[in-house]
């Protein structure tokens, strides 16, 4: 049997075998054992067979052989012969593949390409009727020719154009269409299409709009968007399409489907961007006439936005190359009907359609300087006339808003003072109206009655825009505005929510970025002058002033001046004999803290200065004040003042360079004093209360230092043990809350950040000295309990090896028969993981990522099993005395749990939900007054669980009914739910239940009803009573919850229309 016969037999079922046969023959040809002619001759009997399948196989035999031949093997003449042969046989299978192989060869040439193309075009009807993959092959061949021999096809001119269009007509497969669109686009862009523009356009536009939806698991991954993009490229590729494309696309806007309209508008945008300006101009007014309805009567927000983009795009194209603005420009002709329509709509500016008119003007005028100028010329004068004649403030306000929209465009076109881009060649047309604007907006802002807040805010916003607009106002004109703002802030009484003042502050802040000088020259002196020099003079007005100063001091110069002025004010206050109230100096320090927090202090050039004046000098004063018995100025011995001062110091210490920090370390306890002036607190025999209070400062300073700082006192020689013990003892015995808090945090800080890893046993030793093993059930003093918890906090955050033992020991305290011990310990669990300003990541504290998870997963099972024990023993025990002893234990454990829950992130909770949910539900059953915080914490945990995970999670645990019942019980106005926040939070949980994503479609598909349905009537009925709660916020929450249940919980899955 010949190779050919074998090939014909196997080609259908064994591709590999067929390929091997072809390889062998190709080798024979290559080794001259046989010739190509012989091969072709051997086809003879099959190639004229009546069976097209057999013919196809024969041709593909030849193709397979050619494919296996080396690229340079075939001579030019052979290629020519083969090409002609394949072209003649193009309707037979395999010929297209053969041609594709041939055209890749080096010796293939332009005339041959033409011959191939012609063959394809002549047989297009036959090729169209083939299967998808064979058509794909044809397109691929054509595409290859386009890539390599485009000149040949191009020279064929209309012949190739019509040929390609005929070939691709009727194609429906998305994969083929992707290729068809890209071939068509080449023709559209590069061919002379003037004779066949419509034909060519239709060949692509027939597919508009694309409604293709890719099948699931589509191996080719072609999306509708891919097709839309390529189609859009075709439609927008040539200006000659405009007479066909634009009317057709505009027609599509009559469609009822928003998606079709979206595609049409997107295509319009593409057309306008790529057609030449003259063409765009020709259709500009037609487009406007159609699109204006889309904007004025917008059905969907996005359609109106896209329409605005189209209109703006036209204005941009028509502005190209415009150097002289005149009424004869195509741009002017385009804008004329638009401004006319908008002027018409704006005559009644507070009516609904004024808004779209504003949007149109705003969008188009931001297109370019010429467009802006033409619009301003047409629109502003009429607006000003309407303003003068306006009969009401509502109308005037709407006009001010309209002008502000135009100012926004002006900023987009001409830039702000701080803009870096090049200046615009045109003059800002608004300059003509500068004085009028200044007068109108100034009058509206300052001349209107004070209650017209929203009107004045509109004026203020407009004025602000003009003030930041580049090269518009002179400095003195902006200065006038600044004065108005100052006056509003300083002299005016508050009105309503003080919105005007808030806006005034925003405006000053904004101006300070553009014109810091004006703020420094005008606002600063005025404001600082109102700050009193002594506490007696201080009324509450200074808070207002400081607030404003703090907010506007973003700019570097202003910030620096502010801090210096405030420090000198503070020093004046500190030098007075009688200090009086500390609120004013504290507010000054707070202001400094606030502004420093806003800036990157490590980059501040004046850092050294602030260090000297604040950290060194003020801390020293505080220390000296604490020792002195004579001075009666007690500002620096007030705990809250020290707290704020400490925060400022902390911030500065962190920002300082390393060598400075090493220097500070020596002064953590001496506070920059000499030994004669002040005795450091640690190891002092009997420090006074004032003296001990300076530990607040020491703690904040220590917190700002890096963990490996040098020269820290009392930490070596031999180790930190003595210092830890001293601080712990002082913390345990301290009676003043603020000081005790400082000691506790100091202890935690040392244990967490400065205790070397090798010395960790020192801290555990201290723990067990304070709480000897086995003594957990005795009465323990609250001071000791707090110390234990803070020490543990420091250790647990760094996940010390003893973490689990520490947690277990702490939890045994909760089981103490002594009720006070148990309750204090339970409440202290919230300390462990609570965010703390001292032990924070910002301060470089040693906080391991897994610490929260560790605490939660260690404690929850313990608490859960302990509560179960208690539940069982109470139900079985008979003696009242026994119950008396343990009745507090269950609530105490629930309290401990709520303390932990309130300090961890909800995602940690979810895996433990089945254990946790019963505990949470039991917490809701508590009804003692003490339980209010526990129940509040529980409700907020529940709210987060419900909000993030929805009903299914709770349904899975099988607790929907019991949860809803308890929530409803908590909403009732009873003595147990005395605290209104309890009722509000319970209602919020109910609201979230109905509101949360229940994955309704999935349920409906599964034929299941919402798990909430069973309790719906119960909820709706119970909430009706809550609607009469005496508190308004509770009623509001009840209304929302009830509405959500009425609306969100469907009685039965509704049929889709």
């Amino acid at each position, binding site marked *: 049997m010949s190779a050919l016969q074998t090939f014909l037999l196997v080609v259908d079922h064994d591709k590999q075998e067929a390929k091997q046969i072809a390889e062998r023959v190709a080798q024979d040809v290559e080794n001259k054992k046989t010739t190509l002619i012989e091969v072709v001759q051997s086809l003879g009997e099959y190639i004229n067979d009546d069976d097209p399948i057999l013919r196809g196989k024969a041709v593909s035999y030849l193709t397979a052989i050619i494919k296996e031949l080396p690229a340079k093997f075939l001579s030019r003449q052979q290629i020519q012969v083969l090409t002609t042969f394949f072209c003649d046989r193009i309707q037979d299978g395999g010929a297209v593949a053969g041609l594709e192989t041939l055209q890749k060869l080096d010796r293939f040439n332009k005339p041959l390409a033409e011959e191939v193309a012609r063959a394809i075009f002549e047989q297009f009807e036959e090729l169209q009727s083939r299967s998808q993959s064979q058509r794909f092959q044809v397109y691929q061949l054509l595409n290859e020719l386009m890539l390599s021999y485009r000149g040949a096809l191009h020279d064929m001119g209309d012949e190739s154009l019509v040929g390609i269009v005929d070939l691709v007509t009727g194609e429906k497969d998305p994969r083929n269409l992707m290729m068809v669109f890209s071939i068509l686009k080449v023709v559209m862009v590069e061919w002379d299409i003037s004779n066949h523009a419509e034909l060519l356009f239709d060949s692509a536009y027939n597919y508009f709009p694309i409604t293709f939806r890719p099948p699931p698991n589509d191996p080719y991954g072609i999306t509708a968007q891919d097709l839309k993009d390529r189609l859009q490229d075709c439609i927008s590729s040539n200006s000659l399409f405009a007479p066909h494309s634009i009317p057709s696309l505009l027609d599509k806007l009559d469609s009822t489907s928003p998606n079709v309209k979206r595609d049409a508008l997107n295509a319009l945008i593409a057309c306008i961007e790529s057609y030449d300006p003259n063409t765009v101009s020709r259709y500009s007014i037609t487009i406007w006439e159609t699109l204006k309805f889309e904007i004025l*009567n917008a059905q969907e927000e996005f359609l109106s936005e896209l329409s605005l983009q189209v209109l703006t795009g036209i204005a941009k194209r028509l502005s190209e190359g415009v150097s002289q603005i005149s009424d004869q420009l195509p741009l002017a002709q385009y804008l004329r009907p638009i401004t006319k329509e908008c002027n018409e709509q704006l005559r*009644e500016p*507070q*009516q*609904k*359609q004024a*808004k779209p008119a504003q949007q149109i003007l705003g969008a188009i005028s931001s297109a370019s300087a010429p467009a802006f100028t033409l619009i301003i010329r047409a629109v502003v004068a009429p607006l000003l006339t309407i303003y003068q004649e306006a009969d009401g403030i*509502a109308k005037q*306000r709407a006009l001010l808003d309209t002008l502000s929209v135009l100012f926004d465009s002006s900023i987009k076109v001409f830039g702000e003072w701080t803009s870096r881009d090049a200046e615009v060649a045109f003059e800002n047309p608004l300059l003509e109206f500068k004085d009028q604007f200044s007068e109108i907006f100034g009058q509206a802002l300052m001349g209107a009655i004070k209650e017209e807040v*929203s009107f004045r*805010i509109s004026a203020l916003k407009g004025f602000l825009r003009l003030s930041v607009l580049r090269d518009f106002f002179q400095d003195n004109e902006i200065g006038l505005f600044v004065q108005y703002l100052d006056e509003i802030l300083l002299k005016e*009484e*508050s*009105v*309503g*929510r*003080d*919105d005007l003042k808030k806006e005034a502050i925003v405006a000053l802040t904004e101006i300070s970025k553009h014109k810091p000088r004006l703020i420094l020259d005008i606002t600063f002196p005025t404001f600082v002058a109102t700050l009193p020099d002594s506490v007696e003079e201080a009324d*509450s007005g200074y*808070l*207002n002033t*400081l*607030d404003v100063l*703090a907010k506007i001091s973003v700019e570097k110069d202003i910030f620096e001046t502010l801090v210096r002025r405030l420090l000198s004010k503070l020093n004046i206050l500190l030098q007075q004999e009688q200090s009086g109230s500390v609120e004013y100096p504290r*507010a000054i320090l*707070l*202001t400094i*803290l*606030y502004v420093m927090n806003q800036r990157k202090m490590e980059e501040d050039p004046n850092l050294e200065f602030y260090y000297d004046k604040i950290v060194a000098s003020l801390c020293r004063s505080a220390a000296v004040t604490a020792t002195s018995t004579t001075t009666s100025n007690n500002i620096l011995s007030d*705990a*809250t003042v020290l*707290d*704020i001062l400490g925060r400022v110091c902390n911030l500065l210490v962190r920002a300082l360079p390393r060598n400075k920090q090493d220097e500070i370390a020596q002064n953590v306890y001496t506070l920059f004093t000499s030994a004669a002036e002040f005795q450091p607190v640690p190891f002092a025999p009997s420090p006074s209360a004032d003296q001990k209070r300076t530990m607040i400062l020491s703690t904040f300073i220590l917190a700002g230092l890096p963990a490996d700082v040098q020269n820290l006192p009392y930490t070596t020689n031999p180790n930190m043990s003595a210092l830890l013990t001293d601080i712990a003892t002082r913390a345990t015995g301290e009676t003043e*809350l*603020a000081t005790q*808090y400082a000691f*506790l945090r100091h202890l935690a800080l040392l244990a967490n950040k400065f205790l070397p890893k090798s010395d960790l046993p020192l801290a555990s030793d201290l723990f067990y000295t304070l709480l000897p093993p086995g003594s957990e059930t005795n009465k323990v003093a609250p001071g000791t309990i707090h110390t234990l918890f803070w020490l543990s906090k420091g250790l647990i955050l760094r996940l010390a090896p003893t973490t689990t033992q520490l947690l277990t020991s702490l939890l045994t305290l909760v089981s103490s028969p002594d009720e006070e011990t148990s309750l204090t310990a339970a*409440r*202290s669990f919230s*300390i462990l993981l609570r965010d703390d*300003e001292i032990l924070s990541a910002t301060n470089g504290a040693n906080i391991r990522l897994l610490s929260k998870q560790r605490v939660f997963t260690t404690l929850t099972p313990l608490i859960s099993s302990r509560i179960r024990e208690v539940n069982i023993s109470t139900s079985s025990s008979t003696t009242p005395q026994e119950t008396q002893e343990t009745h507090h234990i269950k609530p105490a454990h629930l309290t401990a749990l709520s303390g932990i829950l309130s300090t961890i992130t909800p995602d940690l909770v979810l895996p433990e939900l089945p254990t946790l949910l019963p505990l949470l539900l039991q917490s809701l059953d508590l009804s003692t007054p003490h339980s*209010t*915080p526990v129940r*509040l914490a529980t409700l907020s945990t529940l709210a987060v669980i419900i909000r993030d995970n929805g009903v299914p999670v709770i349904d899975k645990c099988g607790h929907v009914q019991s949860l809803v019942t308890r929530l409803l019980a908590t909403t009732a106005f009873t003595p147990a739910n*005395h*605290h*209104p926040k309890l009722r509000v939070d319970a209602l919020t949980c109910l609201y979230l239940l109905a509101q949360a994503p229940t994955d309704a479609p999935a349920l409906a598909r599964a034929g299941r009803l919402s798990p909430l349905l069973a309790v719906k009537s119960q909820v709706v009925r119970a909430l*009706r*009573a809550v*609607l*009469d709660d*005496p*508190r*308004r916020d509770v*009623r509001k929450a009840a*209304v929302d919850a*009830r*509405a959500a249940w*009425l*609306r969100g919980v469907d009685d039965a899955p509704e049929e889709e229309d």
Partner: protein
Amino acid sequence: MASEVQNSNPTILNVADLPTRLGSATLSKADTDRAENLASIFPPSAYSSDWPTALHSSSDSSDGEEEREEPIDEQEIYDLISSISDPEHPISLGALAVVSLPDIAIKPTLPDVPDSSLRTVSVLITPTITHCSLATVIGLGVRVRLEQSLPPRFRVDVRIKEGSHSTADEVNKQLADKERVAAALENGTLMGVIAKMLETCR
């Protein structure tokens, strides 16, 4: 809602100008409001250091405040219905001035029985144009919202404001007729429209 839009260009009030409780309440105690100003830029913990027991002591402090009773007043009714959206425009009834604060009244239902807690809320609605056929739908929407949101001791009375509608009597009769209201609420399409109006309620 296949019918033509009847009033395509109504006048719209600015949302900031609508009556709110916040505005009137702070007006009277502006001074305390000002003192809170500074606190607005600092976290509360920066202002008064949070002692370890803060969490637990705070719950008792608001006791005095809890005693305060806040009866349901006209503003509360206004807040309930002003955020309903108009069936024709995506704009609230408040902004369209279809409902307004002075047109809401709460009166004892039985003035002769001083101890009775029964109250009647009457709301007058002002359609944007005098021949608005959707007035009934708006009236129904207001009625449904109030019936869902007020306790059972409240009677709801929704009417068209005198002189603001050409067929006010007709509409009023329909809105006052319990059976006709009930029948209307059985109508699925109508309830769909009303549910859509109530979606925006805050």
